[in-house]
């Protein structure tokens, strides 16, 4: 008993003060890939090495020339950094707070004029400033926040993940991240929950269970899709055994990219969903700071 106390006292407080202080992420960590849209010459290299199809392009005729539409989808990205290995216009940053309320917020698109040799040159339309959340969405979120108040109960559902996301979600309960300091608590049943924290891809064998879990959760309820697979199906995509991202089965309020998202990214996404992120507009969403435009839905 005394030994237990002595060890606890000797250890002291190890809890981070995130989100008041910045995320404690190594400078070597692989987070959001940053593309130099102006200087980008050839999307083919990065698209060829991307295992999850996060960088894709489509060429289409536009008058006498050919136009190339390039997309970087953070909802599909598994943050392996292979694109940056082959393309000097891409840099891997350690930014991990990437959660967004709209799936389109994670998709960045640009248009280029195509050269004869397959490279592209002049940027026709660069990714611009994101549109703000639509009014209906804001009102809905405000009403949910007023009901859920300052405390939140979460039911975690693994709808097909590789268990990497579960490892990190588990980490939210450790003394370093200590999610209970926000009044947020993981509960054993969807009937006790305000939020479903769902990892994917949703498998065919789990689809029914996920629907039933959603139906068992009292309203108002929030759904947060976790990880590349939860956002989009990730490296698995859609196939005979999986339905793809969580939003192909139930409606999703917040998407947290990552493979897996680290506990900071998870906290960021959960606090974003309940409107409890500190008011630092420049840090709310990394896309804003970047000046990146969303693709049309």
């Amino acid at each position, binding site marked *: 008993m005394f030994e237990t106390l002595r060890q606890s006292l000797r250890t002291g407080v190890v809890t981070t003060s995130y989100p008041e202080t910045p995320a404690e992420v190594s400078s070597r960590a692989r987070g959001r890939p940053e593309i130099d849209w102006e200087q980008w010459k050839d999307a083919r290299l990065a698209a060829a090495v991307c295992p999850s199809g996060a960088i894709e392009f489509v060429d289409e005729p536009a008058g006498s020339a050919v136009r190339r539409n390039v997309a970087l989808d953070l909802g599909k990205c598994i943050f392996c950094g292979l694109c940056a290995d082959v393309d000097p216009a891409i840099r891997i940053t350690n930014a991990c707070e990437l959660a967004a309320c709209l799936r389109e917020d994670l998709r960045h698109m640009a248009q280029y004029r195509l050269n004869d040799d397959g490279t592209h040159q002049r940027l026709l339309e660069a990714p611009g400033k994101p549109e703000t959340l639509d009014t209906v969405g804001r009102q809905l979120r405000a009403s949910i926040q007023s009901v859920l108040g300052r405390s939140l109960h979460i039911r975690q559902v693994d709808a097909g993940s590789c268990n990497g996301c579960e490892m990190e979600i588990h980490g939210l309960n450790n003394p*370093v991240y200590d999610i209970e300091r926000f009044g947020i608590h993981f509960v054993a049943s969807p009937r006790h929950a305000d939020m479903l924290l769902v990892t994917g891809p949703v498998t065919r064998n789990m689809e029914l269970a996920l629907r039933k879990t959603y139906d068992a959760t009292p309203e108002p309820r929030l759904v947060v899709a976790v990880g590349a697979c939860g956002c989009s199906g990730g490296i698995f995509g859609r196939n005979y055994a999986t339905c793809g991202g969580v939003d192909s089965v139930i409606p999703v309020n917040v998407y947290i990219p990552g493979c897996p998202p680290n506990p900071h990214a998870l906290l960021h996404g959960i606090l974003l969903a309940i409107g409890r992120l500190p008011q630092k507009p420049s840090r709310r969403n990394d896309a804003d700071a970047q000046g990146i435009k969303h693709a049309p839905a």
Partner: protein
Amino acid sequence: MNLLPELRSILDEVTQRFGTQIRHAPATQPDELYLLAPLELAGALCSTFYRKYHGRLAGVFAEDARAGEHAFFVYYVYALDGVRGFVLVRVPILPENPEMNSVTNAVPAANWQEREIQDLFGIKLIGHPNPRRCVLHDDWPEVYPLRKDFDLHSKLPPFTGVRHKFREVEGEAVFQVPVGPVHAGIIEPGHFLFSVAGEPVLYLQLRMFYVHKGIEKLFENLPIHHCVRLAESISGDSGFAHAVAFCHAVERAAGVEAPARARALRTLCLELERLYNHVGDIGAICADVAFITANMHAMRLRERVLRVNEELTGNRLLRGMACVGGVRNDFDAEQLRALAKLVDEFEKGFNDLVDLIRGNSGTRDRLETTGVLTPQVALDLGIVGIAGRASGFDHDLRRDVPHDFYDQVQFSVPVFTEGDVQRRMDVRREELLQSFGIIRQVLEKLPAGPIKAEIHEVPADRVAMGFVEGWRGEIFHWVHTAPGNRLARCKVKDPSLQNWPALSEAIMGNIIPDFPVVNKSFNLSYSGTDR
């Protein structure tokens, strides 16, 4: 390639006994002996290797070779631990009559794997004691996803709502407790049906494969360099071990070996994976018997490792580090210092944790004699890894068939025979203590040089096995290469697939409140099983 002398003599003996019915196929590695046998001899060969050469049936899997060879092939993988080699027996099955005799009655270890073949290839099992569906649940239509004429992106009709029929357990005061697939904790999905009389469990039925994601089919549809990333997602907590096992298989098929420094760095990462998982499990076992303080210390230590992982490889779960031919990034002096510092601090913190747990008699009371898996049952079911070593199976691929840098380091393999939760925790504790030594020795001997062997094109139509002793147990990947840096087949075997049936045996006679801690002491991967 010259076979190992021991395998050569086995080949001679088998050829002498079975004559021309058995042919020997060339392989790229000296420790893999491929035998081509007719279907009728599968059973006889099985008992020969099982009884005479003390082979373990480490895997059974199939391949659709109807296009080239007009047959399905079923492979039986025997691990001959004594001679550090593997025998793979390949038998053809005619597509006109897709049936095979089950060996499960003789070798219970083959149970789930045979059923998987039946589900995914449509090869009917004859004489299997429980030939029900497993991978494809009851409401799937008649499809065979691993056949080549089945498209990965096939759109299947919606569910029909067919319910699974469990075996019934009847008697006075016997009732059923269904649990899952959505569990109370933050864990993966699976369904457990307990039949109980009062509190003691009479019978536990497992229904898995809720997270079947078509990974083996996906391997056949991706270029090899993408497959490494896919391998990392087979089981998140063993991501690095799976990726390295896959890389081993491809490297062995191509006849290339990763450079010494790459092998050393892989070894460091494998040990880091062992470190964070073992300490997390020890904490979780304590949490399941309500010793929360110990769990908190364990989780704090685990977080420490994950942060160093990020510092070393850019990812907390070591993702993106492995690649075919070696590793993707080197460790500089600063990173190596961070690793050495981690080991020192972790060791100190871990010793404190061990003292804390030892000093808590209540924990020991709950863990000893709980969830016993006897050595005989473990042997019959072919239980491997931590669970095997806690039940008397003295085996560790790192020592017995060393891969990567393990032949350069000294360590011992802890083995216990009691097979209870306490011993499964003790195996983890002892392995952690050995891990500190392994990491220090590798850091001391760290060779200089390149970290990657270039493999531009993997030759087509080669077969090879890759194996790694992950923290949970032995991981096998078997590949059959195809032209254009692709794979015709990749079989993945996580130790969880082998070990799940042990849970049903270990829980019998225990009370339901002890199930979480017994389950945690095995800590098997659902995703690794279901793929």
